């Protein structure tokens, strides 16, 4: 490709940017107009998983590192936010019926007399927001450093991350007094005095969430199209060759794993804000691997696909479990098998294969001559 680095990202009105604009229009204009606040809040909840799916596209799709522990980071992000909100909700005035006023209710139920030390900094909103991204990224850094420097990858990495998800869940459930146990941190009320439970607040949070998602999408696109992104693809396909070319493969892997972790954590924090609680059921093995399927259904190579995949799977889950709860696990299982055996590139792959050629023919006919000579390469085949 002879494109200059700058035009690669901003200069050209290409398929990806157009797709993101279309998605932005859908999320920010069409859905809020078409759905009532209950359903919109639900879409907002689904969209928080899309952050995780975006991270997985980079981590798994681009770099070939399958993490089955994204729920860990989603959960930690969510818990950091929930701890701040919980502390605000348990002011001494609001909790004066407790035997120790001023600490969260579940601590009081577990006979704790004072706030544990690691809860203290979460009185500050700015600390909490930094912690949402920093704590999961740090954890991912430690895990990544230990594993990738020793060239552990592939299925071993997947199993170890899964074990971490199990460990964290058991820890949260077991340490009831410090974490709220199996119920999680519930009954969150206000953010700096602003009630997050009203319909109006939910609407605002939905827009914040959608805007953040679009922002993250652009950031991911930027990472993918940078030199770094192409090295990730190279190390997925021929790791040894990249290593022999003088790159320290482990550093790239650690970076992308941390990046994916931070993205998931943002999703988790937005989840807490919109749904109003956080619990270990979003941390463990099952939710973590479900997050992988969101990404896989959308297409593990496509950022946009991951968002649509997340929306679609979650929408189907809600629909099916409302009307035919027993069918849902069958559908989910079939989805896992189908997406692997029949369409490994997911929805985006189907789009590339069946719809994109028609679209291209249409647009090519219209702008015949104007774009003569410039070969049109679909963005994904060019990048991947």
């Amino acid at each position, binding site marked *: 490709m002879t494109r200059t680095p700058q035009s690669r990202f901003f200069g050209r009105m290409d398929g990806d940017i157009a797709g993101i604009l279309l998605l932005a229009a859908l999320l920010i204009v069409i859905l809020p107009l078409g759905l009532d606040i209950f359903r919109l809040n639900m879409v907002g909840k689904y969209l928080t998983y899309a952050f995780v799916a975006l991270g997985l596209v980079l981590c798994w799709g681009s770099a070939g590192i399958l993490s089955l522990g994204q729920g860990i980071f989603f959960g930690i992000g969510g818990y950091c936010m929930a701890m701040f909100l919980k502390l605000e909700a348990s002011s001494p005035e609001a909790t004066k019926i407790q035997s120790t006023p001023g600490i969260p209710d579940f601590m009081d139920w577990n006979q704790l007399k004072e706030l544990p030390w690691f809860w203290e900094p979460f009185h500050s909103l700015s600390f909490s927001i930094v912690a949402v991204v920093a704590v999961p990224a740090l954890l991912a850094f430690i895990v990544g450093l*230990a594993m990738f420097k020793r060239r552990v990858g592939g299925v071993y990495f997947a199993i*170890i991350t899964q074990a971490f998800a199990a460990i964290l869940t058991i820890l949260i459930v077991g340490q009831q007094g410090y974490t709220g146990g199996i119920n999680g941190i519930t009954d969150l009320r206000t953010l700096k005095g602003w009630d997050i439970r009203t319909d109006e607040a939910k609407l605002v949070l939905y827009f914040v969430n959608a805007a953040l998602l679009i922002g993250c999408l652009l950031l991911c696109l930027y990472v993918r199209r940078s030199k770094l992104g192409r090295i990730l693809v190279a190390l997925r396909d021929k790791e040894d060759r990249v290593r022999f070319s003088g790159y320290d493969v482990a550093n790239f892997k650690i970076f992308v794993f941390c990046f994916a972790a931070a993205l998931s954590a943002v999703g988790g924090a937005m989840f807490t804000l919109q749904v109003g609680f956080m619990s270990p059921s979003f941390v463990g093995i099952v939710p973590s691997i479900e997050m992988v399927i969101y990404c896989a259904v959308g297409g593990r190579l496509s950022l946009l696909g991951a968002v649509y995949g997340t929306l679609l799977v979650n929408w189907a889950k809600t629909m099916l479990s409302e009307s035919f709860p*027993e069918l849902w696990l069958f559908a989910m299982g079939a989805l896992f098998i189908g*997406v692997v055996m029949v369409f490994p590139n997911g929805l985006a792959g189907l789009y590339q294969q069946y719809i994109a050629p028609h679209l291209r023919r249409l647009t090519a006919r219209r702008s015949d001559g104007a774009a003569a000579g410039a070969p049109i390469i679909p963005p994904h085949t060019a990048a991947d």
Partner: protein
Amino acid sequence: MGARVTGVPIMFEGYSLAELGSIFAMQGFAGLILFSVFVLMALGLAIIFGQMGVINMAHGEFMILGAYVTYLCSTFISNYAPALFPVYFFIAMALAFIASGALGMLVEWGMIRFLYRRPLDTLLATWGLSLILQQVFRSVFGAREVGVVLPDWLMGSVAVTDTIEVPINGLFVMALTMAITIVIYAVMFRSRWGQGVRAVMQNRVMAGAVGINTEKVDRYTFGLGCGIAGVAGSAFTMIGSTGPTSGQLYIVDTFLVVVFGGAQSLIGTIASAFTISQAQSTMEFFLSGSTAKVLTLLTVVVILMLRPQGLFVLKVRR
């Protein structure tokens, strides 16, 4: 786990030395039962994952299938052939092996064989399979946990000293585990067929070139691993009840056991199952169950980070 000792954190103080000795002996025995279950589950996985390199996330469900077969068998025999009841367990075990093994071969034929080159995808596909199987179990057997009735000779316990008692069903499971381990060892390392399996796993192309039907070996090996899982499930019914999602509870533990032991070494699998189960059950008495589990898993994961190849490594020239 029938052997779990739940409770509040208890410290060493307040026990006499003799009592402490008994506690360690009893917990050691509880650990041995846990060890037997781990070994049974891990052996099947060690063959499928360690030898074939296939991640079978549905392994727990194959185990539960065996458990349900045992349950059906016990109900059927106690209703229609009560004379056979004292030995129904052996019939059930054979049936469990056949059922799980046959399903395993079917799955290998329909799914796994297309995915040998994509291990991560195998992981996802078998996870999907496990979800489907769970729902099948739930639809057929109901969401409630079921248990089997043990024949009289397996009930009760043997008193070793005044303070130490060991349950007979635990002893039986341990004996069973030992027998199965020996059989698997013989099949894998002392038979012509096992030689073929090891040849295919070490060098598929060369094995094919010397006339081994590698596809057939793959199918039967996968079937064998699943069949062993079925037997493990059968043994599991003797010490605990079975529900549709019981399999999922153990899958991560089992994978850790296999990885920790060194994926390609059967001895390593047994050694790591022993270490993990003993550590967990001994700690469980003095700490709470969840803390013990967290500490055990964390230790294993940290050791794996320092020594990714596991405890025992099979030296193979590639």
